[in-house]
């Protein structure tokens, strides 16, 4: 299966394009090039106005220079991008990429651990760098993702309360060590919803329980969550004061220490306005740094989110309204509403195989009123800011990781193709399992009748 920058997997188009221009690329069995210059494109840095006929210089994995009058270094391999557009790669901030190969086959899924409180688990431990999802996803212009344990998938219900730590990584590399941007980016909390109605997969029907019972279960979960945090505080104190002989290391509490110290944000997944309010209230009282995930009814609590400075990683715009009496287009107009209210947000797929729809989600929101430049930020820059990674990715500025896409046009538009893809400064193949199968079977001879 194709890996980053393996010569064999360089796309057919890319090879023919390069040959046509008689570029002296060392395409085969050479060490990866260190310096590139993308020339002649319209460059959207997301750190300022777009640059016509701009040049981007990439050196040693980082962006070295961006501008209209940049000299092309002598040692650079030149990518003639006339007529093309250059953007930062897209960032999908909630996925199960690498943790989930085939959703229905549990042997290939590492997102759901037993037990309700697992703060010590870290996603990057089990991210499979050889997953077919990585090349498929990056072919759509997504260059980095956050892998989030415990949410999404077929049976997201009952997946625990604290499900582990989310990890950010680039979508190219031979090992996780090469790919990783940051191992622990956020602690994931599935906010316990007051669910009176739930779907039971064993009987394929909805089960109802009395509200009082649902509320009781909710209170129990939240109390447990409080207990864990309280114990983590004591643990931190004890550790600080130090009684080494008696001190027993506790992995779960140890993992929660940066959370209670406000150093590691909590990514709280909630949809219902009531759940969001409860979660905000809880995190405020507990002094936690909260990021809201999914947030189907964020629009109802946008003032609260704004006031408390809580950013939102939105679930797909392609969903039905949470309630039947909500306007039919609420999931599509919500991003525009949050933007107008000044609530920072990013789009996410909440998926694995659907990650490549990320630009489509943002484009749909533009159709329903979100300004186009804000939509670009919400798939390229905002996630990095929300997750504290904007010093590394999100804009085309010198010093940042050279995660760059060169497109045939508007990256949010469905028909746009990614012509070149750079991850950590390396020209990376857009070839993938799907294109391979297509090329293989379109060559199948017509069978005899």
């Amino acid at each position: 299966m194709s890996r980053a920058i393996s010569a064999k997997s360089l796309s057919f188009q890319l090879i023919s394009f390069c040959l046509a221009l008689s570029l002296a690329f060392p395409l085969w069995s050479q060490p990866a090039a260190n310096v590139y210059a993308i020339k002649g494109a319209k460059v959207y840095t997301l750190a300022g106005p777009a640059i016509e006929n701009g040049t981007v210089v990439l050196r040693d994995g980082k962006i070295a220079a961006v501008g209209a009058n940049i000299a092309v270094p002598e040692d650079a391999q030149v990518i003639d991008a006339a007529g093309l557009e250059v953007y930062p790669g897209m960032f999908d901030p909630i996925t199960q990429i690498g943790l989930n190969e085939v959703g229905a086959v549990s042997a290939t899924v590492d997102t759901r651990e037993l037990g309700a409180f697992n703060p010590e688990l870290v996603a990057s431990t089990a991210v499979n760098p050889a997953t077919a999802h990585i090349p498929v996803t990056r072919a759509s212009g997504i260059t980095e993702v956050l892998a989030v344990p415990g949410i999404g998938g077929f049976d997201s219900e009952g997946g625990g309360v604290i499900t582990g730590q989310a990890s950010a990584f680039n979508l190219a590399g031979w090992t996780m060590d090469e790919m990783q941007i940051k191992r622990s980016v956020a602690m994931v909390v599935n906010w316990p919803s007051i669910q009176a109605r739930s779907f039971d997969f064993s009987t394929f029907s909805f089960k109802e329980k009395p509200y009082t019972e649902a509320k009781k279960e909710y209170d129990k979960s939240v109390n447990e969550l409080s207990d864990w945090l309280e114990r983590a505080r004591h643990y931190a104190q004890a550790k600080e004061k130090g009684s080494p002989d008696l001190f027993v290391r506790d992995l779960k509490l140890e993992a929660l220490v940066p959370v209670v110290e406000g150093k590691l944000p909590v990514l709280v997944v909630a949809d219902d306005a009531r759940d969001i309010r409860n979660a905000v209230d809880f995190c405020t009282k507990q002094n936690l740094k909260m990021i809201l995930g999914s947030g189907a009814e964020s629009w109802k609590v946008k003032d609260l989110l704004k006031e408390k400075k809580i950013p939102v990683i939105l679930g797909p715009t392609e969903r039905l309204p949470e309630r039947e009496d909500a306007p039919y287009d609420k999931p599509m107009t919500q991003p525009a509403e949050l933007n107008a209210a000044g609530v920072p947000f990013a789009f996410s797929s909440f998926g694995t195989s659907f990650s490549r729809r990320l630009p489509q989600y943002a484009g749909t929101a533009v159709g329903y009123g979100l300004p186009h430049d804000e939509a670009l930020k919400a798939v390229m820059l905002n996630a990095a800011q929300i997750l504290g990674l904007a010093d590394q990715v999100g804009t085309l500025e010198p010093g940042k990781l050279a995660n760059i896409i060169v497109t045939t046009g508007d990256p949010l538009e469905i028909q746009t193709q990614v012509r070149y893809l750079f991850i950590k400064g390396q020209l990376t193949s857009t070839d993938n399992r799907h294109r391979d199968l297509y090329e293989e079977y379109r060559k199948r001879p017509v069978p005899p009748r």
Partner: protein
Amino acid sequence: MKRALLLATVAFAALAPFSVCAQDSNTQKDNAILIKNATILTITHGNIEHGSILIRDGKIAAVGTDLKVPDGATVIDANGQYVMPGIIDCHSHIAIDGGVNEGSVSVSSMANIADVLDPEDMSIYDDLAGGVTAANILHGSANAIGGQTVVIKLRWGKPASQLPFEGALPGIKFALGENPKRSNFSPPPGVEPRYPATRLGVEETIREALIEARQYKKEWDDYNQKKAAGNQNLIPPRRDEKLEPLVEVLEGKRYVHSHCYRADEILMLIRVANEFGFKIRTFQHVLEGYKIADEIAASGAGGSTFSDWWGYKMEAYDAIPYNAALMTDRGVIVSINSDDAEEARHLNQEAAKSMKYGGLSANDALKLVTLNPAIQLGIDNRVGSIDVGKDADLAIFNHDPLSVYAVVQKTLIDGRVYFDRQRDIDARPALEKEKQDLLAKEKKAAEEKKAEGKTEGKPEKKPVAKKKQPPTSPSNAGNVAGGGL
């Protein structure tokens, strides 16, 4: 995702678009309507800039650039917006009251979706707002032979009896692979696993049912023959509601829409159909159709697929977004379907992906959600393109519908505006006020009741009122349960 009603008391607020639609039913029906100044995507004869469409009695009466406004006609100025044929969804589970699957038996041909249509399912309105005007409403895929299917028009606000697409041939769902063999579900405790559990068993389940049906048909043919010959003392065969629809399949009077994923199982069903002398009308999902596109084309079956779903189960691991384009290139009539009330809201976008993946032309991409599903459902004489004489089922978009930025402004069925975005937006403040008033009233009533209880100072138990069941959204339940796995 869940959509529960907030309170029983605001239930009717949810039906507001219903009443908004209903009020103009008399003003538009039977009168001429002229849509003018539009970019018309006819599908069959190119695009017409600055064009007009004249609608009379619910049918397209004229299409062109120089149409005059007839006296008394309602004029819709499209202001340069795009008009395309209403989108046809060849695989849907909306508007179904209760479960989508009769999952107790492996042959459930006696179950009929037409008997359980729910005209109040909000998904009808949601999908209408995505430009969908007709949909193939299918039983789920739990069984090798599932239930009977029905084609509907999304006539939001009309009773269930007026949803079915008049004259459309009924269908039946077959299902192959992981769902009927139940690879991905465990039976509930105490329930025995069900035959079949392999693809081999799925084939035999279907073959056995068809043999039964053939025998049953022979009994009736014999009976009818003897009766026609004047034989008086005959006892008719016992009617069998399981086998009757299968006899219709054998006689070509009922379409088979078969859920399938892998190439091997598709070829299996083509062989079985050949053996019994009928044709499969459509292969549904057909995610590996691209591997055997020539065989599918030769069998005369259509392929109705997803745009880019893959990897959610083992049999979807070889799914590719080039499927629609590759099958089209090899001569299969292809449609792109939703299988999901939400996905149906942007089938125009999903069709556009076949241009990116496999290079279909814009017109061929649009065909995937208009003319081609119409052909697959045998209703292309009525819908699927903008041609004189066809039903005025139209979707008006503010941009090219193949753009991600296009938003449906109006949807017409039979020449009547069933969805109007502006009207929907305008109605929202009044609906919100109504809801808030109801909530306030409910709150006040509850407080008064509480105060009453206090003044009476009754510690003893009051008779507990039976808890009102919140109105569930059955079709949503169905979608979760649905064939869409």
